[in-house]
């Protein structure tokens, strides 16, 4: 089983490496954005695992995007550094928002994060001398690595792939360590975790800041890839989409947000940016919560169960016979 899983992973990564060779620039562009969405969705997971509903993830993506873009554009900071700075700024802002609100019951945190999305949008909109406000920030340099500019879309695609794989690797290692076990324990029964000596406020904060950091990474890549930032993009809608990826994909397993982000972003690609995308997302979300609470990742198991049940009832002799 384990070997099979590793095999499937290797094939998937090989396929992703081949996308620029097989598809055109369109696919390269679409998949690079899918990878950004995967980073966003997976980085929300630690917070959700702790039982904290963060509905403001897009705000931290916005912070990372603007910070990295402005550093690169105005101070000619190399991409590696500006990205790291963007992610760190996002994490520090997460600390400032998270520290006061994570000590209270979950809904306070949820409400503060929703309001925070609006706060960041307004700041980006009003601080015109720095962000150009509603004219949008343009002329962001292309990403570079070790001084070499990644000029082609294909090379930027590989950067996105690398960032996604690295993020997933780090998050996976953390989730499968003792730290991940503690996060799960807080989500399941926070009073019991406390009674075993877990400082739940600190662990929630750590999970939240970690998420903010990687949202900042996703934002930084996005800024240098699209090369244009517009405040309303990072609004409430994007924040809920990131939550939707997690729920539709499934909350019970690390693969959930990855499957959710990939599945939904690819499926909604034909109507990206229109109202129908949101309608599609919200219906998918409602249907999942009501009829498949475990998300898409539990679907194969459920189907297998159904088939087993059917065949068992077909083959077993009836009591009357």
């Amino acid at each position, binding site marked *: 089983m384990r070997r099979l899983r590793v095999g499937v992973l290797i094939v998937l990564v090989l396929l992703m490496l081949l996308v620029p060779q097989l598809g055109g620039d369109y696919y390269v562009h679409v998949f690079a954005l899918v990878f950004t969405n995967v980073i966003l969705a997976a980085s929300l997971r630690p917070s959700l695992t702790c039982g904290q509903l963060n509905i403001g993830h897009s705000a931290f993506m916005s912070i990372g995007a603007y910070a990295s873009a402005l550093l690169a554009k105005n101070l000619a900071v190399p991409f590696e550094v500006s990205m790291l700075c963007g992610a760190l700024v996002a994490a520090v802002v997460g600390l400032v*928002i998270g520290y006061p*609100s994570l000590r209270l019951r979950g*809904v306070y945190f949820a*409400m503060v994060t*929703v*309001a925070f999305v609006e*706060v960041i949008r307004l700041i980006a909109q009003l601080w015109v001398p720095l962000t150009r406000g509603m004219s949008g920030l343009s002329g962001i340099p292309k990403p570079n690595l070790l001084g070499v500019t990644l000029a082609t879309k294909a090379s930027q695609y590989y950067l996105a792939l690398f960032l996604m794989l690295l993020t997933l690797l780090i998050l996976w290692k953390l989730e499968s360590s003792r730290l991940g076990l503690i996060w799960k324990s807080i989500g399941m029964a926070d009073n019991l975790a406390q009674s075993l000596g877990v400082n739940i406020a600190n662990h929630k904060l750590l999970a939240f800041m970690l998420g903010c950091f990687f949202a900042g990474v996703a934002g930084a890549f996005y800024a240098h890839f699209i090369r244009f930032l517009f405040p309303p993009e990072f609004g409430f809608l994007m924040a809920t989409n990131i939550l939707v990826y997690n729920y539709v994909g499934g909350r019970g397993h690390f693969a959930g947000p990855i499957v959710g982000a990939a599945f939904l972003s690819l499926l909604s690609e034909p109507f990206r940016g229109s109202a*129908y995308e949101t309608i599609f997302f*919200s219906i998918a979300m*409602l249907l999942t919560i009501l009829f498949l609470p475990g998300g898409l990742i539990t679907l194969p198991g459920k189907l297998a169960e159904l088939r087993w049940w059917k065949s068992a009832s077909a083959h077993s002799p009836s009591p009357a016979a």
Partner: protein
Amino acid sequence: MTPDLLIQSTIIGLSIGSIYILMALGLTLMFGMMHIINFAHGAIYMLGAFAIYYIFSQWGVPYFAAFVLAMLLLGTFGYLVERSIYRPIKGGIEPTLVALLALTTFLQAAGYPVFGQLDKHVPPVFQGTRNVLGVMISVERLMIIPMAGALVVGLYLFINKTKMGAAMRAIEQDKEAAALQGVNVHVVNGLAFAIGFALAAASGALMAPIFKLDPMMGEQPLLKAFIIIILGGLGSIPGAILGGLMLGLIDSIVATALGAEPAFLLSFVFIILLLLFKPTGLFGYAPP
């Protein structure tokens, strides 16, 4: 700021504050009973405004009848949401919150193709201006205060003087004990949904003649209501009323001096500081 301007923004603050109070009361009522935050509250506000647009200004139904109709319509919708979303989830708080978020984005997004993107206006209901303490204020804005006030008093009487209200208070105290005493928790929760939705619809209906209508119009009032219930303490009805008045005044006075967006940023900074130093809210309310 001249004294005239101060009086004017105080009165406008009171009328905005009344809207905020209606929004916050519904939220805090639903939280007290079910420990959920109705994220769809802003979308229902928007639907309330559009209901007035169609019923009053398109079909020509008299304003007050249209107002009551809008509340009934969306109250029923609230009851249906309890039946079809809240009840099947069986009290799971997080899935309920997420489902309500999905409902919000759905209603907002569906608003564009259904209502069209045109700037819709509801014609003025109350004409003219009136002299208050030497300042001229539009009657439209003034009328919000008594109408919202009547709804608040009505809600107070309902909760404190009727059998259904007593059942709601019992659930707020202790759900299991209430169920053991024969309170039908499902029906009463459905009622709380209906009341919350109807109050949000009323807020939207009151604001419809003043602002332009669009599917995203509920987002600002929702965020304001969040700030109010954090300010007043989750689940506290007096907290929601005092918080609503405070935020209405701050909003109106600071917004006149600095602009609407800085006023919002300021109130956010304020609640973060409040949570840091006084986590139970301004009025020290600790939910049971």
